């Protein structure tokens, strides 16, 4: 050992920074700064001091929600409507997804890349449009019919589900499937025996996750007039009945929590089912979950009084023919294109600010929101529970409602819309970041504590390096969602492409609507592409 110590000092290899990452980091800073400038943060007033009183009244009503029997009855009925829409929408999505997955899976296409790429591209169109946009379009074809809500959830969700189902099937190791084919089994039996069993857990789990999301979407559709909890919320809001607004918010939070907890319980059970090995039996909890869902579907069908006949009436066909005829070719008038361009910039800036706010907040709160691994004092546990409840409330309230609340204290423009999206996304991202922290290997951090590192140094060396990757990947994924959601906030008046779409639909200018829709789909595709590139640079 001593002989080695006397040797000359070793040469120092150069410290190489990963250039791609630095470029992405610098680019992010520039884009966030540009977005903030675009939202008017550095130029002129953004605060609305006059709204402070109204905001105080709104906040004050949080502790005294409306509880009179008449209103509670109305509330219960609207909760049922929301649940019915969510259940039927999610069911339709899973059915469409199962069919669509066959169309877009690599397994189906094999080496025919062109067909596969075309099928995938086709799915991007329904996926790129927000549920609310679908609702707005469908209401003009079907009129005020419950089908509008069901289809508005089912069509875009169906496209996403098809993509995810196909990916799940394609990710299953192929060895057993290929062995069956080699043994002379047909293609369908080979898939049934070799691919579906290993993928079935993931497929079911994702279906239940979609049901959770559908609850949130049903609320949002209510905000644009489809009925249910969201509709009740917007009614109470516009008549300034703050106590009722808070009752709706609490009902919403409870519903989201129920969907969240139920969905997670089912998904956890799917990962580790309780089945005896000595006889043919199914896991009781899972069987009950599936039967309950089927019963809910039948009940929702009856409760919303849906009939397939509505889709086939002459009036619907005429209206559809008229709208499609008027919508093609798209309007390429110079003014419209310029306006689309500037609104698209607004939409992008809104989503960028939203993600920047949400990511910063999530990083700050992740430590407090994560369930600590070891023993902790009651103070730490209480803080954790409070932060988690706070995050749940943030994500239970749909972004347009946050925008309305923020308009009390901010002047109208891009900023309130962006912050509303940011606050909502913080609710989602905060939970994801906390889960990413919980899933980290605890041993490196324990080792740092054992050699005397303080809490700050332990966090910097033991948690941050491992959590950065997943949290940034989640943030990029949520950015793609935020672009879609910013259209929704725009629909209700916060500017951007959504506002333009609402005004064009209101004027029955279908050719212009087509142009805006094309712009939306292209924007979503572009953001997906940038997000995918950035994630690749992170890896």
């Amino acid at each position, binding site marked *: *050992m001593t002989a*080695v*110590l006397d*040797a000359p*000092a*070793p*040469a*120092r*290899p*150069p*410290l*190489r920074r990963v250039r791609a990452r630095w470029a992405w980091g610098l680019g992010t800073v520039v884009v966030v700064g540009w977005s903030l400038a675009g939202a008017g943060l550095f130029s002129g007033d953004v605060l609305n001091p006059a709204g402070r009183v109204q905001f105080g009244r709104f906040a004050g009503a949080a502790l005294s929600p409306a509880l009179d029997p008449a209103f509670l009855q109305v509330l219960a009925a609207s909760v049922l409507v929301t649940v019915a829409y969510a259940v039927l929408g999610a069911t339709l999505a899973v059915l469409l997804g199962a069919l669509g997955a066959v169309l877009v899976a690599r397994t189906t296409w094999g080496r025919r890349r062109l067909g596969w790429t075309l099928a995938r591209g086709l799915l991007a169109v329904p996926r790129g449009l927000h549920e609310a946009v679908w609702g707005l379009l469908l209401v003009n074809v079907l009129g005020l019919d419950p089908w509008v809500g069901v289809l508005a959830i089912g069509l875009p969700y169906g496209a996403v589900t098809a993509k995810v189902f196909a990916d799940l099937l394609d990710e299953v190791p192929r060895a057993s499937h290929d062995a069956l084919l080699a043994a002379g089994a047909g293609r369908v039996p080979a898939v049934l025996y070799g691919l579906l069993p290993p993928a079935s857990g993931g497929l079911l789990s994702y279906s239940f996750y979609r049901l959770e999301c559908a609850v949130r979407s049903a609320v949002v559709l209510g905000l644009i007039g489809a009925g249910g909890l969201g509709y009740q919320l917007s009614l109470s809001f516009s008549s300034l009945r703050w106590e009722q607004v808070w009752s709706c918010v609490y009902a919403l939070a409870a519903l989201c929590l129920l969907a969240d907890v139920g969905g997670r319980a089912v998904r956890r059970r799917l990962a580790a089912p309780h089945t005896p090995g000595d006889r043919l039996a199914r896991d009781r909890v899972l069987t009950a979950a599936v039967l309950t869902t089927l019963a809910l579907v039948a009940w929702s069908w009856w409760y919303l009084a849906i009939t397939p006949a509505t889709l086939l009436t002459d009036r619907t066909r005429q209206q559809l023919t008229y709208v499609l005829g008027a919508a093609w070719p798209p309007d390429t008038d110079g003014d419209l294109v310029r306006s689309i361009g500037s609104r698209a910039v607004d939409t992008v800036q809104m989503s960028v600010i939203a993600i920047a706010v949400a990511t910063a907040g999530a990083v700050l709160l992740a430590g407090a929101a994560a369930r600590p691994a070891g023993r902790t004092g009651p103070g730490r546990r209480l803080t954790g529970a409070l932060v988690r409840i706070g995050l749940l409330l943030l994500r239970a309230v749909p972004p347009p409602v946050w925008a309305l609340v923020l308009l009390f204290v901010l002047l109208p423009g891009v900023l309130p819309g962006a912050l509303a999206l940011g606050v909502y996304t913080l609710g989602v991202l905060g939970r994801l970041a906390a889960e990413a922290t919980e899933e980290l*290997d605890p*041993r*490196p951090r*324990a*080792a*740092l*504590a*054992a*050699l*005397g*590192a*303080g809490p*700050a*140094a*332990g966090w*910097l*060396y*033991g948690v941050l*390096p*491992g959590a*950065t*990757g997943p949290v940034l990947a989640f943030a990029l994924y949520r950015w793609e969602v935020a672009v879609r959601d910013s259209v929704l906030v725009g629909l209700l008046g916060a500017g951007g492409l959504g506002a333009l779409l609402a005004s064009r639909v209101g004027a029955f200018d279908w050719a212009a609507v087509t142009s805006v829709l094309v712009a939306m789909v292209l924007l979503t595709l572009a953001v997906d592409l940038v997000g995918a590139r950035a994630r690749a640079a992170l890896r």
Partner: protein
Amino acid sequence: MVGPSGAGKSTLLGLVNGAVAPTAGAVQVLGVDPAALRGRALRRLRARVGTVHQHLELVGQLRVVHNVNAGRLGSWPAGRAAWSLLRPQGVPEVLEALDRVGLAERVFDRTDRLSGGQRQRVAVARLLVQQPELVLADEPASALDPALADRVLGQLAGLVATGDRAMVASLHDPALALRHCTRVVGLVAGRVVLDAPAAELTVADLATFYGAPR
């Protein structure tokens, strides 16, 4: 320290570095009872005790230099620790430690690019930088091939030989224990059943500890 799995070797090491709290009795580490210390004083004691497991304590996403520098987090203030993540601090000492384990040219690589044996040596380099008075090694050689295991234990023994230091290691291989240690303690079901200078023992004497049914 030798003994069948479940004999309490890891628990004993955990008691010494404070990862396990005693349910009865008291522990004296370097003349102090860790259970009686809080905050800064506890951290100061921990900085004097270095632990090495099977390279599981390293952070894969960090560069090697940071994982080695982590040995100094007990003495560095938080600000310096944070700044070092951007501009690595104290690189000459890190390079010297890495050179002793033969990894100087990998100093700025990401740790998860290294093989298991290389990571084990990074963990040893962390100890070399930490310069603890007491080294705790929990089966430090179990993930390594025999030649590498011998080399790693040699490096640990070399560190302990400089200055007034001691090492407590739990080992699976009786030959390693006899070659690198001065004293062998056998544990069975939490009790000391053997305590003798290594020079008086043979591999055959220790075989009973590894063959014991458990």
